[in-house]
């Protein structure tokens, strides 16, 4: 019996495969959408990483996740009435997409998620905009993202 390949620390896994993941996603989605999909891919990988039993075939594993993320992204784009071919030129700004995606979140969470990830504001700025504390803004954004992730997992 061969010894199972140990699971490397995530940093090493990420450094080794991030370029290949980005290449795949750019090929399928175009440069604009590929960035969000890149984040999504490695966040999904992180969530599952603690349950990996061995470190064999990690490249194939992460590229499978990336393909699934790309399929989801294209499906969303089609549902929005966008042609997948249009993906290469990312017509809709991130905030518009997020505003739609977050429809249905409690107002504070929705605002925090959109301001953070759509407009790339800092928590200090978000706190100022929402008249709350940076910590409360952080928690609202984090709770919102958790809720969105739960929804997309179903």
């Amino acid at each position, binding site marked *: 019996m061969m010894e199972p390949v140990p699971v490397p620390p995530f*940093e*090493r896994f990420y450094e080794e495969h991030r*370029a290949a993941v*980005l290449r795949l996603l750019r090929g399928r989605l175009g440069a604009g959408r590929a960035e969000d999909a890149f984040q999504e891919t*490695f*966040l999904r990988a992180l969530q599952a990483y*603690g349950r990996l039993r061995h470190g064999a075939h990690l490249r194939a594993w992460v590229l499978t996740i990336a393909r699934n993320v790309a399929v989801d992204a294209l499906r969303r784009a089609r549902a929005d009435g966008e042609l997948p071919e249009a993906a290469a030129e990312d017509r809709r700004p991130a905030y518009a997409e997020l505003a739609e995606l977050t429809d249905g979140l409690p107002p504070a969470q929705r605002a925090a998620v959109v301001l953070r990830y759509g407009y790339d504001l800092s928590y200090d700025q978000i706190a100022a905009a929402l008249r709350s504390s940076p910590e409360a803004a952080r928690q609202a*954004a984090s709770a919102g993202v958790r809720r969105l992730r739960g929804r997309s997992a179903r």
Partner: protein
Amino acid sequence: MTVPADLDRRFRDAASLLGLLDVGYDVVETPLGRVLLAASERGLAAISYDPDPELELERLARIGGPRVLRSPRAVAAARRELDEYFERRRRAFDLALDLRALPPFTLAVLRELARVPYGRTTSYGALAAQVGRPRAARAVGAVMNRNRIPIVLPCHRVVGADGSLVGYGGGLERKAALLRLEGAL
């Protein structure tokens, strides 16, 4: 194809923000040279002098789990408090510590060590006496030597009964520098 720095940073921030890391770390410059800071959700887990990332990553995974990622955000609080300490604007640390999986004697010694005040020193024998093992000075020395979180757990404040510096995991020069910073030398 290289990953744009901004995209890389956003992923590392998000991973920490979403609480997906077992251990987040960063390497920072201090007056004592480059230092690796590592933190879990429980608190600061390690400070290493002259880190060799190849070795450190495995060590951090053994402490907290395999989801180890460089993430400045994960150690921002520790970095801020250390900066303040080196600028003499902080005399005590408010950081939570991750002391998981340490044996009871080690924990007892580290707990006493944490109470040695800024700018003061104590001896290995005195610490041993404080944990009820007056003849265990040598074992206390071994605990200091393996201290995962130097500076914050101030093993630099432990010296020989005759006042000699004896030893330090980061080298005696650093021990002396820390004691000078605190005005104890």
